[in-house]
C-alpha cells in the first residue's frame, strides 16, 4: 500500500492557508507527521480521512482516488480524530459492536471475536460494560484506537493520539500502534517529537501548511550530527546576549538553570560543549529556519 499526496492546498473561508502545495509519499509503514499546533496537520489528516476536500491537489491510495471515491476509502480506513466524544449511556462493547457492523463485519460470530480481542488488546475488557462517557481520557483514547483498528483497515490515521495521556498510558498506546501488522499504512500526527522517534520509520515536519522535511528520523539526525552545542547559562542577561549572537535552537531548564542548545558548525565559544544531536533539534531547527525564511 502506498499513499500518494500531491499538491494539496487548502485555504479556509477566514483566510487561513492551512495547506500549501503539500506533497508526500507514504509507504507501508508508520509515518510520523510532526508539527506545531496549527501547522495544518489535522487538515491534512482529515483530508486523507475523507472528511474534507482540498482546494486543489490529489490523494491516491494505490491508485484509488481518495477524494472522489470516499465510500471505497472509508471501507479500508481506520481513523482516530484528534478530539472526539462518545454517545452517552452506551457501553464500550456495545459501541464497538455497532462500529463493527458499520465497518462491514456483519457476521455476528466474527464480530464478537474481533470486538472481544480488541477489548483485550486495549485493556478495556474489565470495563467493557461501563458507559463510555464515564471513561477517563486514557481509557477513551484506547477506545479510540480500538475502533480505528476495527475491520481490516489498510489505511490508519491517528491524529495527536498521545496528547493528554499520562506517561504509562502513552507507552501502552505506542506499543499497541507498533504492533499493527505490516501491509498497512499508518499516519501518526503529533507535536511530540518522542512519539515519532520511538515509532516511525519515516517522518515529515510540517509548519504553516507546508512540508519542511520529509525523511527518516535517522537521516534527519545525520544532517546535524556534530553541530549541536550546549551550555548552562547563568541568567536572562546572558541568554539574551546568546540569542542575539548565535542560532539558539532551544532552551531547557535543568535544575532551575537554563541550558541552551545552539546549532553551529564549530564550537560557538567558551563554556559550550558538544552535544548529541536529537530529533528534537531537527524539529526546532527546521521550524526556526522556516520562520526566518
Amino acid at each position, binding site marked *: 500500500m502506498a499513499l500518494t499526496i500531491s499538491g494539496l492546498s487548502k485555504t479556509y473561508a477566514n483566510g487561513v492557508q492551512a495547506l500549501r502545495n503539500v506533497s508526500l509519499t507514504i509507504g507501508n509503514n508508520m509515518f510520523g507527521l510532526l508539527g506545531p499546533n496549527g501547522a495544518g496537520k489535522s487538515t491534512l489528516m482529515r483530508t486523507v*480521512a475523507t472528511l474534507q476536500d482540498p482546494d486543489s491537489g490529489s490523494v491516491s491510495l494505490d491508485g484509488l482516488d481518495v477524494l472522489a471515491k470516499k*465510500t471505497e476509502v472509508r471501507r479500508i480506513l481506520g481513523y482516530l*480524530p484528534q478530539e*472526539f466524544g462518545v454517545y*452517552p449511556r452506551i457501553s464500550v462493547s456495545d459501541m464497538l459492536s455497532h462500529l463493527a457492523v*458499520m465497518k*462491514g463485519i*456483519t457476521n455476528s460470530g466474527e464480530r464478537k471475536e474481533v470486538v472481544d480481542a480488541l477489548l483485550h488488546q486495549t485493556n478495556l475488557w474489565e470495563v467493557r460494560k461501563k458507559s463510555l462517557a464515564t471513561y477517563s481520557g486514557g481509557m477513551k483514547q484506547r477506545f*479510540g484506537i480500538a475502533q480505528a483498528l476495527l475491520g481490516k483497515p489498510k489505511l490508519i490515521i491517528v491524529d495527536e493520539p498521545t496528547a493528554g495521556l499520562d506517561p504509562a498510558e502513552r507507552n*501502552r498506546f505506542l506499543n499497541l500502534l507498533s504492533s499493527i501488522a505490516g501491509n498497512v499504512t499508518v499516519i501518526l500526527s503529533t507535536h511530540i517529537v518522542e512519539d515519532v522517534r520511538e515509532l516511525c520509520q519515516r517522518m515529515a515536519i510540517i509548519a504553516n501548511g507546508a512540508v519542511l522535511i520529509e525523511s527518516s528520523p535517522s537521516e534527519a539526525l545525520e544532517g546535524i550530527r556534530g553541530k549541536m552545542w550546549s551550555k548552562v547559562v547563568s541568567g536572562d542577561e546572558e541568554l539574551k546576549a546568546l540569542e542575539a549572537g548565535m542560532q539558539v535552537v532551544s532552551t531547557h531548564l535543568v535544575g532551575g538553570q537554563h541550558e541552551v542548545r545552539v546549532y553551529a558548525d564549530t564550537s560557538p565559544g567558551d563554556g559550550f560543549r558538544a552535544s548529541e544531536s536529537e530529533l528534537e533539534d531537527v524539529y526546532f531547527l527546521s521550524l526556526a529556519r522556516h520562520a526566518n525564511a
Partner: protein
Amino acid sequence: MRQFLEFFLFELKVRFKSISTYVYFAIWFVFSFLCVASESFGPVGSGNGKVLLNGPFANSYNAIGASFFGIIVIAAIFGTSILRDFQRDTTQILFTKPISKFAYLGGRWLGSFVVTVIVFFGLVPGEMLGTLAPWADHTRIAHAPLVWYFQPFFSIVVVQIFFLGSLFFLVGALSRRIFIVYLQGAAVFALYLFYAGVFLSTRSLSRFWPSIFDPVGLLYIDGITRYWTVVEKNTLLLSWSHQAAQGLFLYNRLVWCGFGVLTLAALWMFFPMSLEALTARSSSRRARLAAEQDDEIRSVPTFVTTRAPLVHPIFGAGTTWAQYRSMTRLRMRNIVRDLPFWVLIILMALLSCSNGRYAGRIEGQNVWPVTYLMLQAVEGIAILFFYIIATFYAAELIWRERDTHFEGIHDALPAGETTDWMSKLTALCFVEFAVLAVAGLCGILMQAVQGYYHFELLQYFKELYVVTLPQVLIFALLAMFVQTVVSNKFLGHGIVIGVFVMQPILFNFGWENTLYLFGQTPPYTYSDMNGYGHFVLPLFWSITYWLAIAAFLGVLSIGLARRGAEDSLGARMRGLRQNFSRIAPALAVCLLAAIGSGIWYYYNTHVLNEYLTAKDRRDIQAAYERDFKKYEHFAQPKITAADARIDIYPDRRSFSGTGHFVLQNKTPQPISAIHVTNAQQGFTHVVFDRPFHVVSSSPRAIYTIYALDKPLAPGETMNMNFNVGYTSRGFKDGNERAELAYNGTFFDSGYFPTIGYDQSLELGDPRRRREEHLGPQELLPPRGDAVGSVTNLFTPTADWIHYTTTVSTSTDQMALAPGYLQKDWIANGRHYYTYDMGDVKILDFFAYISGNYQVTRDTYQGVNGPIAIEVYHLPEHSFDVPDMIAASKAGLAFYEKAYSPYQFRQYRIIEFPRYRTFAQSFPNTVPFSEAIGFIDRTEKPTDIDFTYFVTAHELGHQWWAHQLIGGRVAGSNMMSETLAEYSALMTQQHRYGASNMHRFLRFELDRYLRGRGAEVRREEPLAQVQNEPYVWYQKGGQVMYTLADYIGEDKVNLALHNFLMQYRYANADDAQSGPYPDTRELVAALRAQTPADLQYYIDDSFENIVLYDNKAVSATITPTADHKYKVTLVVEAHKVKADGSGNETPMPMHDLIDIGVLTGPQDAQKPLYLQKEWIHDGRQTFTMIVDQMPNRAGIDPYNKLIDRNEDDNQIAVAKE
C-alpha cells in the same frame, strides 16, 4: 457590597451580550403589540367586541398570558444563571476566593431578576405602540392612563418573576444539574396546565381556594372577572383591595410573594459556599473512577499484544441493512435511556389521565366516556407532547454526532447518508409510535376506571396512527430539515416552533387554505353515527399532500446532511449540486406526489366547490344586507301550505326533489312582485301558476325578484313550485355542510325558498359589522310595532301552514319528516315514506332526516288518546333512551295538566351526528344531537340529568312555540325559550327534587352571569330580550323558577294556562294577518296571579336588570336549655339596577328573601330552617331556634336570586 455589585454587573453583562435576551424582549413586545393591534390575535381581541384592546382587563389578561408562557423564559434566565459556574467548571477558581454568600447569590439573583423584568417589560411598549397601529380597530382602543399598563405589569408579571424566578434559582442552586434546570420550566408549565385544567375544563364553580393558590392567574382572573360586564372590564383593574372580589387578588399575590421570600430564605440556608460541598457529587464520581483505573493498572501490569482475529468485512445491500438496523437501535437507545424522555412521557401520561378522567364532563354533567370523547380528552393534551417530542428529538438526532463530538469517527464510517438519515427518521418514528401508544393506553385505562368497558381499539388505532401519526411525522420531517439547514440547534427550535405557532395565527388572519398552511389538514369530527364519514377524503389528500412535501424536504435533508469537517451550508449546497443526480429521482417522486395530490385537492376544493374564506362569507352576508335590506318591509304573501317530494341520497350526501307552496296575500294591498331569498343555494326553477317574469337576480342567485303580470289580490292565493336539492361534489377545504352525512342526514326548511328578505342572514357580531362598514344591526322593533306585531317571530314568511310530504332514501336507512306516517313503500330500490300533518297547523318549520336507526317505542295515554313516543337512535347509544322516554312521559303528563292538551299523537326523538350540537323541536319531531344526549350518565344523586332536561325542554316547545308564538318584536323570544326552560325545570324538579335543582341552577346562574359579561351589544331586560340567549334561557329559567317558589307553582302554571288559551294559534285561520301576542300579555298574566307585595319581583325580573348582593356576615350558635340551638345570623343585602352596558345604580330594598339554617355536606344540604323574611338594604340580624346542630346559615342560601357573589350567601356557623 463591591463584590455584590460585581456579580450583579457581571450577570447583566453576560445577559446583554446574549442574543437570547433581545429575542425574549422582542417576543413579548410583538406578543402584546399584536394583542392590541389585531383583533385576530389573542383571546381578548378575538373575543368580546366591546372590551377595549388596551383596557385594564385586556392588559391584565395579556400580562397573565405572558406570565403563563413566560414560565419557560423565567426558568431559562434564572436557572442557567446559577448553573453557569458549575457548567463551565469555573467553580474551582471561584469558590477558592474569599467571596461572600450574599454577594455571590445576591448578585446573581438580582442580576437575573433585573434582566428578566427588563425582558418582560417589552410587553408595555408593545401594548402602547399597538394602539398606534393604523389598521387596528380604534373603536376598541382607549386613551389609556399609564396605570392601566403598569399596574398589571408590576402586580402580575413582576411578582411572578420574583417568586418563580426565586424558585428556579433555588432549584438550580441546590441541584446543580443541567437537565433539571432545563426541565423545571417545562415541568412547572405542564403542572400548571394540569392544575388549571382541572378547574377550567370542567367549569367547576369552586373558585376561591384554587384562585388563591393559582401562581399564574388563569384561575383567579376567571374567578374575579367572570361576571364582569363590559363597563367593568373597561374601567377596573384587578384590585389590591381586600374588599374587592373577596380580596382574591391581594391574598393571591401575598401568598406568592411570601412563597418567594421563603425560597430565598431556603436558598440562603441550604446553599453551601464551600467547594467541597458543592462538588461533592462529582468528586465522589472522580474518586470511583480513579479507583477503577487503579484496579485496571494493577491487574494488567504489562501490555501483551495479541494478534487480532481475521475478519472479512463485506459491503453490499445486506450490510447496508445491518448498518441501518444497528444505527437505528443505537439512536433509539440514545433517546429512551435519557431521563428527559421519561419525564416527558410521565408528564404526558399524567396530564392525559387527568384529562381523561373528566372526558366530556362539563358543568356537573356526567357522561359515558365513549371513545371519541376519551380520545378528544387524551389526545387534546397529548398532542402537544407529540409535537414537542418531534421537535426536540428531531433536533437531537440531527445534532447528536456534533453535540457529542463523535462526528469525527462517525462521518468516516463507510455508511451512506441515506442509511444514516433513515435510521434517524426510524428512531423518531419508533419513539412517536410508542408515545402515541402510551396516550392511547391512558385513554383505555381511564375508560376502565370510569366503568366503561366498550373499548373500540380500531377507533383508537385509526385516530392515533392513521390520522395523527402522519401529521406528527410531517412536522418531524420539517424539524429535521430545518435542523439540517440552520447552523444552530436553538435557532432551529425557534423556527420550528414559529412555524407551529404561526399556523393558527395565520388562519385567524384569513390565511385559511390548507394548501399553504404547512402540515394543515381540514378540521374533522368523528361521530359514532358516521365514523370519520365524509372527512376521510379531504384528510387523506391533505395528509398525502403535506407528507409528500415533507418527504421532499426529507430527501433534501439527506442531500444536505452534514458530513465531515466542512459543514457550512454553502459547502453543503455545493455538495448537493455535485451529487444532485443521486437524489434527483427521489426528489422528483416526492414533488410529483405533492403536485398530484395538491392538484387533486385544489380541483376538489376550488373547482368542484366554491372556495370561500370566512371573510368571503362575511362579505356575502354584508352585501346581501346592503343590497336587499331595503326590501325588508315590502309586502309579501305568506305561505299557507307546503308539500314536497324529497329524495335523499345519503351515500352521495345529496338530495333532490320538488316543492310546492301555497301563497296567500294576507295584506290589504295587491302584491305584484315576489322576492325570494336562496341562502343555501338549495332550490332552482321557481314557477308560479300565473304569468310572471324575473326582474332581477343577484350573484349566487341569493336574491331574486319576480314580477307577477297580474298582481295577487288581497286574500287571493296562488301556487309556487320549485326544484329543491343539493348535490355534494368532491370535498371542500373545511366548511363541509354538516346537514349532509352518510348516516344521519338532517336538513331543514332553510333549503327551501324564503319569501322576502331574510333578516337572520345578517352579520350579528358588531366587530364584523364594523369591518364591513355596516353600522349597528337593526334591532327587533318594540312591542306593538305595526309590522312586527303581525309577523310571526319564527317564520316571518308564514303564519301557520298545512304540511304534507313524501320523502325517500336508500333502503338501508329510514327517512323522517314531521307528521304522521301515512304509508311507506319500496320502489326503484328506494324506500318511500309519506308523512302528513292532518288538520293540525304548524309553523313553516320542517326538517328531513335519514339514517340507519334502531327505534325504541312506547306509548303515553294522553287526554285526547294515546301518544306514540319513539326514539330513533344508534344501537350503541341506548344508554339514555329509557331516560328520554321517561322525560317525555313526565313532560306530557305535566304540560297536559298544567297548560293544555298536546296537539299531536306522536313525539319523536331522532339522533343526528355531532357535527352540530343542539336539539331542535320541530312539530312532534325532535332531532337531537348525539353530542348532548344519548351518552348521559346519571348515577349519583348529585349528577345532573341533562338529557332529561333537554328532552323536557324540547317537548315544552310543542306548547311554547308550536301552540303559542309571539310577534317579531322585542321580548318574544323569551315566550318560547324561557317558558320551555321553565317547563323543563319543573319537570326536572318533580323528578329529582329541589336540592338537585339547586346544583343545576347554580350552573345556570353562572352561565347567565358569564353571558352578560361577554355581551357584545347590550343586555336587555327579560321581557325586552333581543338576541341574548343567556337572558332567555338562563335568566328566564331562573326568574320563572323563583317566581314559582315565591307565589307557588300552581299560580304560575295557571297564569301560563290562561295566557296560552287566550293567545295560542294567533292568525291560524285569518285571511289577513292580525297581531301576535307579546310579552306584555305574558307579564300581565303573571301579574294577575302575583300578590301586590311581590309585584316588585315582576318589575325587577321582567322589566329591568336587577342584581342582588346578598351576604352572610356572621352566624353564631348558642345551645339552649332545652337542647336546641339558637342561631344568630347577621346578613347584609344590597340591590342594584344595571343598564345594558352594566352601569349600576343602587336601588332601595324591601324584598322577601330566604333566610336559612342548613346542615349536611355541601352537595346535599338539608334546611333546618328556611323562611322568607323582608329584607332591607344594609345589615340585619335574625335569630332562630333549630333542633339539630347546624353547620351553615345564610341569606338566600339556595341562590334563587341573581347575585354575582353567590358563594358568600352562606357562612359556616361558629360557636359563641
